[in-house]
């Protein structure tokens, strides 16, 4: 077995290192590149499972810790650690990545090398950001995701891919650059209080940032705002969401799955991991604002999704709604609601990932995503219809599937403190059922009017293979959420002090 002190590094670096090695392979070796990248992502998944087996849920602090000096004079270290919160998100990432490679096996046929390398580097960035326990290191991984995603959207995307890619980069950077200054300032505060330079997360937790007066004269409010802006853009919190429909719609299927499944989670993860414990008073003061924005996002996202004619855009806007629920759960601040939010991050990754995957399936066959171009597909693609139904029901929160548990925990956890917000948010659940079921009706049940749809082949074994693990986890979480909730409970209690 692998020594524990390299396990997290192995998880983080495996995809990236393999990706860099693949750069040296010839352009024509697409088959080799596909297989190697799939195997690398499967190896990462195995390593993540090993980490799961070594993980002790009773222990709230970081486990499998690695700490190496990097820039000692500045207080920067290569520090990795895993608690229950990062574990579930690492598992989600590691699970989705092989699915992405399987799903793009045929649909990406141009410049395969660039695609798999970008995907593998992206996975390293995501995993590193979830596991970094040094703020500088976190920032490096956070930004590392930017460049591969820019390429994935800009090279393999749809018609308006350039616009979407540039918008994605500029939005993301607009938030994260200010966060860089905030990170530096946080370290400066810690130095002023203790006399040592450090960027370690555990050290920063002990830095008491002064609250001051008002907003512009309150270091804590300003730092909170800088961090929150970066994360709120990523989530995205209404009204910073405008990059999302463009990026999701224009990205290739694999890019959309990763973007919705994992990248958005980094925003909510950051809010929970950094904003909440580092700036507790500012968090408290900003709670009404964020609850309001979350609820607006829930209702607004649902209404806009309802009006969409493009299936992929509809799913993209449904993300705005779902992420609104997660933000609501985080800022409601009880253990139950936070646990629900964390579980909902995973759920959204599974259900939205599955929906993007399935929309990609018909797009590959018909090269259109317009709802009006379909109808009556249930008659010609029974297997596909079943898969789409499972994903839909998971997304709208049918009891017995995963989405229900997450939404239920968020709403019940938030209700005692913020009944009014919960009441509005609950309408979002109803609206979610409305737009998703009406999508299903229009695509699958209406009469089979269009000739081109009569001969559509059903799911291939490869597409079914990509979908199967998602369905498996949707059911597992729906039936026995305790498996995953128990992993993160102590860590959540430690973070929010509940």
């Amino acid at each position, binding site marked *: 077995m692998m020594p524990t002190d390299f396990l997290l590094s192995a998880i983080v670096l495996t995809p990236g290192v393999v990706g860099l090695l693949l750069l040296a392979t010839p352009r024509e070796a697409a088959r080799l590149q596909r297989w190697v990248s799939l195997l690398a992502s499967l190896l990462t998944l195995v390593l993540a499972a090993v980490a799961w087996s070594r993980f002790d849920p009773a222990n709230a602090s970081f486990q499998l810790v690695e700490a190496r000096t990097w820039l000692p004079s500045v207080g920067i270290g290569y520090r990795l650690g895993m608690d229950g919160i990062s574990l579930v998100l690492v598992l989600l990432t590691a699970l989705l990545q092989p699915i992405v490679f399987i799903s793009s096996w045929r649909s990406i046929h141009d410049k395969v090398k660039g695609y798999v390398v970008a995907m593998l580097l992206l996975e390293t960035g995501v995993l590193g950001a979830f596991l970094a326990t040094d703020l500088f290191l976190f920032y490096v991984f956070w930004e590392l995701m930017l460049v591969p995603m820019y390429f994935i959207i800009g090279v393999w995307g749809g018609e308006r891919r350039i616009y979407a890619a540039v918008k994605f980069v500029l939005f993301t950077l607009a938030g994260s650059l200010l966060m860089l200054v905030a990170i*530096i300032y946080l370290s400066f505060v810690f130095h002023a209080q203790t006399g040592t330079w450090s960027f370690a997360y555990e050290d920063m937790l002990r830095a008491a940032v002064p609250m001051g007066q008002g907003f512009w004269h309150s270091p804590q409010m300003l730092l909170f705002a800088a961090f929150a802006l970066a994360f709120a853009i990523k989530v995205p919190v209404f009204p910073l969401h405008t990059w999302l429909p463009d990026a999701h719609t224009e990205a290739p299927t694999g890019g959309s799955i990763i973007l919705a499944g994992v990248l958005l989670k980094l925003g909510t993860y950051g809010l929970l991991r950094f904003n909440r414990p580092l700036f507790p008073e500012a968090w408290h003061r900003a709670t009404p604002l964020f609850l309001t924005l979350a609820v607006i996002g829930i209702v607004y996202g649902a209404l806009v999704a309802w009006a969409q004619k493009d299936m992929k855009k509809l799913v993209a806007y449904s993300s705005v709604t779902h992420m609104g629920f997660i933000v609501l759960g985080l800022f409601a601040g009880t253990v139950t609601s936070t646990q629900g939010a964390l579980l909902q991050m995973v759920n959204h990754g599974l259900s939205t990932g599955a929906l993007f995957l399935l929309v990609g399936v018909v797009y590959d066959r018909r090269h259109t995503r317009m709802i009006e171009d379909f109808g009556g597909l249930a008659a010609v693609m029974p297997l596909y219809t079943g898969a789409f139904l499972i994903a839909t029901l998971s997304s709208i929160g049918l009891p017995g599937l995963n989405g229900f548990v997450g939404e239920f925990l968020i709403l019940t956890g938030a209700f005692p403190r913020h009944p009014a917000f919960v009441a509005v948010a609950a309408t979002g659940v109803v609206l979610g059922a409305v737009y998703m079921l009406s999508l299903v009706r229009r695509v699958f049940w209406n009469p089979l009017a269009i000739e081109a749809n009569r001969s559509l082949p059903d799911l291939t074994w490869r597409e079914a293979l990509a979908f199967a693990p998602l369905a498996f986890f949707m059911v597992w979480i729906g039936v026995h959420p305790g498996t995953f909730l128990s992993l993160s409970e102590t860590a959540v209690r430690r973070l929010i002090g509940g």
Partner: protein
Amino acid sequence: MNPTDLAAVAPELLLVVMGAVLVLADAFVPALRPRFGAVAGASAVAAAILRWTGPLPGAVWSGALVVDPLARFVDSYILAAVVLVAVIAGPYLARTAASYGEFYGLLLFSAVGAMVLAKADSLLVVFIGLELLSISLYVLNAFHRDSGVSLEAGWKYLVVGAFASALLLFGIALLYGATGTFSLAATARVVAERPLAGNPLVLAGLALALAGFGFKLALVPFHAWAPDVYQGSPTPVTAFLSVVPKGAMLVTLARVVAALAPQALTPKWLPLLATIAVASQVLGNLVAIAQRDVKRMLAYSGIAHMGYALVGVVAFGFDGLVGVLVYLAAYTVMNIAAFAVVSAFSESEDEPHLITDLAGQGWRRPFLSFTLALAMFSLAGIPPTVGFVAKFLVFRAAVNQGLAWLAVVGVLASFVSVFFYVRVVYYLYMKPLPQRAPAYLEPWPVRVAAGACALAIVGLGIFPSWLLNAAETAAKTLLR
């Protein structure tokens, strides 16, 4: 003159001799012309080895020069730049039928000028070093003597450079008049004895010297020459011009600040310098967006980058100086990487190097395009590149000196810059090749130089501790 003095300047002596040899060899054995680049590069490597194995006695030549770890640090990247430029100049000069020994001779002379400048402990030596550096460069700028733009570049750099030299000289004269000495240390002692408030001569001298420095660094408002000169000069010269004079000049400025501590002398110093830094960042980045020529874009980007580096001087102190030094080293590799690729991605020197001409090259010429993309991301300050580390360090210095607003302005300016750096990547990878695909060459020396720079950009970005330690050792000597 004693043996210590001679040993301390052995690298400079070697380069001067080799420069002269190259110029003479061109006249007497022109058959050796294809080897000149290798000779120049080898001389620079030998000079670097001499510098790293030789003594660092501190002040030599009766206090005219200081040979200390700081000087060694600066020499290292000047000489690295010489080697890289000599490598990429070979195929470039062959292509433009201009492989003359004078090119490499002048390259070595200007490197010596920069090395002297960065070691100067006397204002007069500052001037001598600067002139040696500049006059060699005037000729190099106009090296394509049949090309209008090249002549224009040389002419512009000459006129503006002469003006800057005059300002600097006048400033030095005023300082000499006020203190009776050229030595920085002695000037500092005199200034310390007599408070500056009653000493307008010193203030005026400092202001004029700063203006002279500003011209050479292409800081706003002394920047107007940069775009034309960058565009018109032969591309390898532009690469050299964009890093070496700036690197040496900024270190000289740091030496002056460390000795005279003008930030302590006059309350106006900090706001003035901060204004210059911010104006350079904002103007450089905003105007760069509008550029269609890669070399002009890199000229404006260079203006902005000196603005960032100047933040380290504004936030003067150990952290600030370390930041400046790391910044200069980072700027050297990323800028030379960019110009190396640009020198290859060009069909004719008389035509502009349009960004649109890069369309689709990413998939046609993957290696050089990858390097150019990497240089762009590094210039934009995106990790894990050395450009990010450098920006992080200067912004950290600003925050630690209580100048967090300067860091905020800096990151906002970098945000603007992302737009035009990323546009280059966009043309490389996301635009299709034009109907008539340009016939760019990829000579192996350019590939080697680009590869070395790419390796440095990523290697120093992921493992910056070696560079940081060297910069810290260098900074300690200045702030003892």
